[in-house]
């Protein structure tokens, strides 16, 4: 088992209320997540990345989150939020190493974009670059929060292909929040609904 969540839920009193979630992912597997707006899908991903206090336990290769230093955990469990934060002026400053040319071209991003100022990026460019800056760390688990929300269909398709390839070649697990049933179908057959009161176990559609 590569990645496992056991009864993960928001901390009592934090106002985050989704039914406790348990899930298991093998290497190379992709799981899509859906659920009503505001139910706590992003909060669930934040808990998996250990960015927010939560109950339950999360395990990577059988080792509990609490046993791994937080900065190491987050490098291995890469979370790309719906809205990406950029702290420096130039795009390249946010990358620990330059992304492979193939990744850039597969997302139709020109290499010059790395030297551009962050301010000049479009929302869609930010979203794709945020994915790439997480991928260059080679995470074993990838948590994506609606990564195609600001992309046209063609670019969304390309991003899906890139993530699928990454999962296969690196034997990484992917959890992908998506509102779009067609997109979920493209990503494979494992899907999980985050609910307010009762969770559905992962089912095959």
């Amino acid at each position, binding site marked *: 088992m590569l990645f496992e969540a056991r009864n993960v839920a928001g901390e009592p009193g934090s106002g985050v209320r989704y039914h406790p979630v348990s899930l298991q992912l093998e290497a190379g597997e992709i799981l899509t997540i859906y659920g009503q707006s505001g139910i706590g899908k992003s909060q669930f991903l934040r808990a998996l*990345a250990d*960015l927010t206090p939560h109950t339950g336990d999360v395990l990577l290769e059988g080792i509990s989150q609490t046993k791994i230093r*937080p*900065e*190491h955990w987050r490098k291995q469990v890469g979370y790309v*939020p719906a809205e*990406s*934060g950029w*702290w420096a002026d130039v795009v390249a400053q946010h990358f*620990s190493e330059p992304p492979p040319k193939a990744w850039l071209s597969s997302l139709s991003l020109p290499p010059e974009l790395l030297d551009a100022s962050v301010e000049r990026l479009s929302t869609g460019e930010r979203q794709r670059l945020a994915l790439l800056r997480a991928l260059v760390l080679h995470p074993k688990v990838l948590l994506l929060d609606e990564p195609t929300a600001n992309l046209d269909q063609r670019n969304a398709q390309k991003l899906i292909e890139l993530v699928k390839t990454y999962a296969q070649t690196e034997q990484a697990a992917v959890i992908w929040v998506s509102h779009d049933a067609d997109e979920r179908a493209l990503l494979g057959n494992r899907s999980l609904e985050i609910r307010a009161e009762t969770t559905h176990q992962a089912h095959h559609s």
Partner: protein
Amino acid sequence: MNIESLSAIDLGLAALLVVALGVVQFLMGLGLQRSLVIGTVRMTLQLLLVGLVLKALFASANLAWIGLMALVMLALAGYEVSARQKRPIKGWRGYLIGLLSMGVTAAIITLLALIVIISPQPWYTPQYAIPLLGMILGNTMTGIGLALNHLTQTAWANRSRIEARLLLGQTATQAMADLRTEALRAGLIPTLNMLAAAGLISLPGMMTGQILAGAPPMEAVRYQILIMLLITAATGFGSLLAVHLGARRLFDDRQRLRLERLGQRS
């Protein structure tokens, strides 16, 4: 040489100037008379009270009383620091961070100045100890207040940036590096301005006071230079400590940004 004594009538004449200002404001419809009256009366009472306390303190020159006075000054300064925060760290910790960083640096630097540099006999002679501590506290209070305020406000406004850095495997220290530097800069700006303006734009209060009291100008200048150096060191080290403690409080043991630990003051 002795200072010219001021009578109550002399002060009354000066007060007439403020009364005149109040009348003009009233005629112009500015509506500030109330604050003006309250501020003036409050200032007079506070200073008279301090005068009485100092008089008693100087007469006794007792280390315990001087220590108590120092603690009261420190507690008030600590309160001022937390009262000036727009997004204060909640609970007793917020007060304690300001108090501790100010107390530790002000105490060390005041003691150093009294024992090693000025060395009056005894070292705690209140005529030296109390004004010295007052000047150091007054300035570190401003610096630490500004630095902490800047730290918490920028952290609040930059959640997604800080979290983006955490998500890419940076530690809390790395993720906060820029904001810490900016906060320290914000805390030191008044001190840097003070250093630049000293003597040219403003004649510092203590030097002016000593000259009025009949001290030779060069002696007064040397004292003023000493005070400015002490203030600069105290503000700088105090802000460093406050920003360090404040930034730590913004994160938990799993290096998660915990902005809910900040309150809001309207």
